[in-house]
């Protein structure tokens, strides 16, 4: 499976979350994703970007367009923050209103086709998601 | 026998160059016999394809025998295009593949003419050629199959759209009669059509009729729940009608929680409730005394 193109977007401020949404939307639209699929994917990206900013204390997103037998987009969110101590717990649904500790990972996972989290306390976090057309 | 692959294959390129006309002639003749479909393709068109193929093959083989290599890109692209159009034109897979395979015999004849005196070289060349042609033949078949699969998928999508008609029963009331099994793909399409229709018709109530759905298991129930939840988020609500006694039993046995979604056994009961909710009341017309 080949990576057709890749770009990196810094996630260091709130404005960057909006940039992430715009970027992902553009790519998904260009590849011809359906409106619902676009919306799901952009929303997942928004969730993960916010995590990177707030919990990860800033990082970046890499967007890669994939080809090969299937067409899709892969997003990789990476930060050098405190990391996630208990990934299973983080994946469990648990939105709380207010400041909320819910990382929204479980929700984001349901919006995409492939989902992977790599994280260790003190070693940062890397979340990769893929949506196929 | 230390000669390299590339060295051997460069022979095929020049062999084709030398015997080009003879190869083309024999190839066409063989195809007419076995797989020619006059009804589907004109003679001149076929000839043009053969010539182009042979030229590309000549170029590609002079650079090696690995058909995945860049040298073979143009050739593979041509084959993809040929397979695609043949699939659409109505050739079957055998006829499509034979376009390639029927070139073997003419090539072997040409090889024999060129290398007949050197048995070892001839054998090597024939083997390499077989590998190349077989590889290209398989590639053609794969491309053909993909085109067919794409067509089937597109037809399935079209059928899905046709089978999810949303009906406007009254101002503000929609009905979605579901027929057949509800799988994931189908439910997505159904959900989206219904929600779109709600927005476009400004309908506050949507009746989902499942009379035509044979079984309701947890998966189906979940899909229905998601649809109703989404509709509510948008400001509309759903009533589920056509709930047969067996389905009611299944739902209880499986422990499915339908939240507070209203369910009715008949569409007419559901319609009645829907009208109430949209504030519509039907009044029987008065009988007129004959005045004339």
């Amino acid at each position, binding site marked *: 499976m080949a990576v057709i193109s890749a770009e990196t977007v810094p996630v260091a401020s709130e404005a960057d979350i909006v940039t992430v949404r715009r970027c992902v939307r553009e790519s998904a639209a260009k590849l011809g994703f359906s409106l619902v699929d676009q919306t799901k994917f952009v929303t997942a990206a928004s969730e993960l970007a916010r995590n990177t900013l707030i919990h990860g204390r800033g990082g970046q997103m890499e967007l890669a367009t994939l080809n090969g037998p299937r067409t899709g987009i892969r997003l990789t969110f990476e930060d050098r923050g405190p990391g996630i101590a208990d990934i299973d717990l983080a994946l469990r649904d648990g939105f709380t209103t207010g400041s909320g500790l819910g990382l929204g990972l479980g929700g984001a996972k349901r919006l995409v086709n492939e989902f992977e989290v790599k994280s260790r306390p003190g070693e940062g976090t890397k979340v990769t998601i893929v949506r196929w057309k | 026998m230390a000669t390299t692959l590339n060295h051997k294959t460069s022979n095929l390129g020049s062999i084709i160059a030398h015997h080009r006309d003879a190869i083309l002639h024999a190839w066409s003749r063989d195809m007419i016999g076995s797989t020619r479909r006059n009804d589907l393709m004109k003679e001149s068109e076929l000839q043009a394809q053969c010539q182009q193929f042979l030229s590309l093959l000549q170029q590609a083989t002079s650079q090696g025998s690995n058909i995945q290599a860049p040298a073979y890109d143009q050739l593979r692209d041509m084959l993809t295009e040929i397979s695609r159009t043949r699939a659409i034109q109505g050739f079957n897979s055998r006829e499509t593949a034979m376009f390639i395979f029927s070139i073997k015999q003419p090539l072997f004849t040409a090889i024999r003419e060129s290398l007949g005196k050197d048995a070892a070289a001839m054998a090597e060349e024939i083997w390499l050629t077989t590998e190349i042609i077989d590889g290209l033949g398989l590639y053609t078949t794969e491309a053909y199959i993909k085109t067919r699969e794409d067509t089937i998928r597109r037809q399935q999508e079209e059928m899905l759209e046709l089978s999810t008609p949303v009906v406007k029963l009254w101002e503000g009331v929609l009905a979605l009669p579901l027929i057949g099994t509800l799988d994931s793909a189908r439910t997505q399409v159904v959900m989206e059509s219904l929600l779109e229709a709600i927005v476009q018709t400004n309908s506050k109530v949507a009746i989902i009729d499942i009379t035509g759905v044979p079984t309701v298991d947890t998966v189906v129930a979940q899909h229905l729940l998601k649809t109703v939840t989404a509709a509510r988020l948008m400001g509309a*609500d759903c009533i589920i009608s056509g709930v047969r006694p067996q389905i009611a039993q299944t739902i209880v046995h499986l422990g499915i929680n339908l939240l507070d979604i209203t369910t009715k056994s008949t569409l007419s009961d559901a319609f009645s409730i829907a009208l109430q909710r949209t504030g519509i009341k039907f009044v029987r017309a008065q009988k007129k005394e004959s005045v004339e």
Partner: protein
Amino acid sequence: MEKIPILRMGEFLLVTIQVDMHDRLALTLQDDLTNRISETGAKGVLIDISSLEIVDSFIGRMLGNIASMSRVLDAQTVVVGMQPAVAITLVELGMSLEGVRTALNVDAGMELLRKSINGHEEMEYGSYFR
């Protein structure tokens, strides 16, 4: 800094969200709205999200917060115009939008607000999302 305009229509306040908001803008809206409700004594708030193409958990929480805070100030909130793709995504995300009432459009939303204010009706079936 840009702000989302809050219009006054009689007893109601109308907010139309048309931009892709960044978090701070959303928080500012929350503040502004609660202040305006307090100042004007408005009984109802209508939030039109028909142009919003993305509602993630943050925006969802904001809507929930606005509904809660308004209620404390004795005002009802109705969110109108959610796009189908957004609704589908929110369901998948598992967002419950607890306590947020919804309607198809501004007209339906106004009607809902009027009814609930006049008759103190707690909910009209179909437009209160639980």
